Each structure stands twice: as C-alpha cells, then as structure tokens.
C-alpha cells in the first residue's frame, strides 16, 4: 500500500470566476484518520468533493492540478469515474439514505457494480450482515431490514450511509461534517464508530468541531481562504501550532 491514500499537487478549483481552492499540496496518510478544520467557507467541502469528482455536477466548476489516488491522477482523461467512486466513498453532511429499504440501501452499490452471477442471495446476505455489523447496526436492524431507511433516526441513517459504502471495499472514506446534523449522544456513537473503522480504511473528515478533530484524527489540516495553512500530527497542531493563524483559530479568536 502507498504511504498516502490521496496526494494533491497544485490543486485549484474555480466556481466560475471564484477561486475556491488556491493551488493545494496536501497528502493524506493511508490507513489513518485525517481531519480538515477551518472557518466556514474556507473550502473544506470543496476540497473533499474534489476527491471523488462529485464537484463536477455543478455547472461552471473547473479544476486544475493533480489529485493522485493509488498512483493515478484522477483528473487525467482516462479516469474511470465509476471505479474512482467505488474506491473513494463519501458520507454527506446530512444523512441521505436513498428512499429504499435498509437492505436495498446497503446492497445498492453491489447491485450496480456486480453482474448477477457474482451476487447470489447468500453473497448479498453476507454483505448485508457484515456491513451492518461493521457500523454497529446489525442488532438493531436485523429484524427490520425492509424498513424504509428514511424513517430511521438520524444517527442510524448516518451509520447506514457509512455501511452502504463498505460492500464496495473502498480505500478511502470521505466524510463531510458527518455529525453536524446529530445530537451529542449520537455524535459520540459515530465517533466511536470512526475509531473502529480507522485502520481498515483511510478516513478524511471535515469537521467544525475542534474537539472532535482531536478525538478522532491522527493528522489534522487547518484551512483558510482556500489554502492549507498547516497540516501535522493532530496533537502537535493543537499543542504547538507553527502558524500564527492556526494558533488564533484554535484558540477561538475567529471562525
């Protein structure tokens, strides 16, 4: 395995004329949890959405520079978007289970990407159970697999959104403020889950909550106005920031 799961070189992103990312060089360690912090509007979501190229849905988005995932620049012309998105999963700020049953949500990816002969009933059932167990939902949901997923509590919905990535065996899971729609209790549960997943997957988490960044991440990057100010081991960043702006931010002087 590469030392880094994602590397960018001179990554710029424009929304029309507006330069939201100003030439970023940033690297995320494989198998570790990395956090992105920074004030509102600094480009955390934008950066995260570059890594599975879902930014391109919007009109007028232009990207420059490189994003290397497994030695391959995902912005090069020969990139297979489907393969990329299998490798790099994403969890959104608001839980967004599909309006299908729990079971169909979890198996959505498998059914998309594997032809029938590779997915007989027992393979599917196994994937279903493994994924739900991995996010601590199996005991709660094993008897209600046909419940409409959108009727679950937000905490369960968010766990389900994580679980549905797992059957595709992603290398990286991107999470954009995964707890911001949840109450403190649910947040604690999700954080516990993140610590369980760490190691098996490379996680990149955007968060507004610095305490959360300290609790869950190995490395932490501080972003400001479309640039990465500094990125270091989380402990070091919070204990002895090198840049004055980082220090100001983590001491709560702005943002």
């Amino acid at each position: 395995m590469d030392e880094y799961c994602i590397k960018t070189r001179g990554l710029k992103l424009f929304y029309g004329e507006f330069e939201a990312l100003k030439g970023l060089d940033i690297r995320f360690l494989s198998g570790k949890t990395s956090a992105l912090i920074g004030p509102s509007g600094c480009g955390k979501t934008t950066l995260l959405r570059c890594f599975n190229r879902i930014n391109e849905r919007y009109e007028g988005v232009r990207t420059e520079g490189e994003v290397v995932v497994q030695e391959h620049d995902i912005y090069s012309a020969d990139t297979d978007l489907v393969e990329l998105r299998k490798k790099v999963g994403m969890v959104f700020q608001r839980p967004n289970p599909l309006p299908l049953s729990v079971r169909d949500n979890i198996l959505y990816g498998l059914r998309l990407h594997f032809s029938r002969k590779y997915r007989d009933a027992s393979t599917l059932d196994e994937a279903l159970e493994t994924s739900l167990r991995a996010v601590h939902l199996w005991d709660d949901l094993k008897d209600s697999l046909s419940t409409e997923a959108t009727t679950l509590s937000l905490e369960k919905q968010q766990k389900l959104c994580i679980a549905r990535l797992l059957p595709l065996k992603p290398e990286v899971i991107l999470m954009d403020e995964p707890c911001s729609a949840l109450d403190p209790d649910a947040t604690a549960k999700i954080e516990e889950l993140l610590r369980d997943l760490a190691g098996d997957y490379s996680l990149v988490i955007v968060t507004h909550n610095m305490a959360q960044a300290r609790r869950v991440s190995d490395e932490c990057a501080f972003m400001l106005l479309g640039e990465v100010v500094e990125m270091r081991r989380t402990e070091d960043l919070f204990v002895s920031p090198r840049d004055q702006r980082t220090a100001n931010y983590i001491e709560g002087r702005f943002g």
Partner: protein
Amino acid sequence: MEFAIKASGFSAIFFVFAIFFFVFSTASEFIFEKMDFVEFLTSPEWYPTSLSNKRYGTLALLAGTVSVTGLAMLIAVPLGLGSALFISEFTSGVVKEGLKITIELLAAIPSVVWGFIGLAVMNPLIIEVFDAPIGLNVLNGGIILGLMSVPIMTTIAEDALKAVPDSYREASLALGATRWQTAHKVLFPAARSGLLAAVLLGVGRAIGETMAVLMATGHAVQIPGSPLDSVRTLTATIAAELGETAAGSDHYQALFAVGVLLFLLTFGVNLAADLIVRGRSAR
C-alpha cells in the same frame, strides 16, 4: 379587492357545477325515462337518425375514444416522460430553459392546427406508408393526440423529478452510479406518484380532446379491428351531431347523455390523478 377575489373564486366553482347541472338535467329525461342502460353502454350501434329504428349504443364511440387514447398514450408516455427526464437530469442552464419554453409553446398550439396536420400531413403519409385506403383513422388520431399530450406530461413530470431531493442524486452518484442508473433506480421510484399523475393528466387531456380527433379519425362509428380503421370518439360525435339536432329531441338528449358519460370518464381520471398527488404530499 378581497371581495372581488372571493367572488371570482366562487364563481368558478359555481360555473363548473352549473355546467354539470345543465348537461345532466338536459340528459336526465333521456337517461331515466327513455334509454336502456344496458343498450347505451354495451351496444355498438349508434343510429340516432335512423327513421324506422333509432338505436343509441355508445360502445363503438367508447371504443373509438379508448383506442385513440390508448395509442396516444403509447406514444405520449415514453416521449413525455423521456423528455422530462432529459430536461431535468441531462441538461442545465440555457439549454434547459430553452427546452422548457419550447415545450410550453407546444402546449399552446391550438387543437384545430393539430387537426389540420392530421388531415393535410398525416393522412397522405399514412396512405403512402401503409398502403391504406384512407389515412384518417386510429393511427392518425393516436399520433396527433399523443403529440398533443406530450407537453402537459413533460411539464408535470419534470416538476415531479425536480422535486426529488438532490441529496438522493448525490448519494447514488457517489456510490458510482451513472446518471441513467440513478434515474432508473432512484429518481423514477422516488417521483413515481408525480409521474403517474403526469400520465393521468395526459390521459384526461387526450380523452377530452375534440377538434383534432374529429378531423383526424375519419368518422366511422365502429369498433376498430386495427389501427388503420376509422373510428369516431365520444367527443367527436357530440361535436359533429349536436348542431344538426332539434333542441329537446331524443337525439339531442342522447348526445347530452354521451356528454355525461364523457364527463364521468374525465372526472374519474382527474380524480385519480388528484388523489395520487395528494397521497404523495400527505406523506
């Protein structure tokens, strides 16, 4: 001002009831005293002007309406839903707005113009292509009516697709689905009641349409055996015959009874559409 708004609102409701009351009361003597229900609904023989033996069976007219509408839907449903999907999911910006305006313009084409196209363009074309004796038939009326129903279906279906939360699309795309897969596996199921309502409104539009089918279907009261047979619909019958009957005559009243039948048919379809839409918003 408030009074004026209320008055116009109530007057609209009043007029609808007044119209139904007028149609129904004109037809009531015929319906309750003269007509044989079974014959009216099951006999294909519509001979209101026969001297010796007048017969008032609407089955052939009903078959005309159903066959033309059915064919129209075979054309309009894929076209209408397909263009709604295309506009909603595969275009953006200027192209999207341009297409939406074009579709709305299509809805503004008067039906007599469509009828004219049926007569002047489709008729010779059908004779040529199918080597048919006449080109005014179910096929012609169905195509014209299908095209006429596309705009309303597209507009309503596009609204239904637009109402699907964007987060569903992102969820699906982020799992590696293509836009087609997303449409087919997520958007259509999520928007299904709105799409069904769009189809039913198209059906209602097609059943009620008169002028274009009058011009395009060839005026033969018969149960069609093939799309190349001429037929006559309920609406066309009323439009064609009412002017030639004496007010108050049996024939006159019978045409109003046909009107009641038609009214019930479109009312049923619209009610179904409405209930479906309500069912959706209640959830």
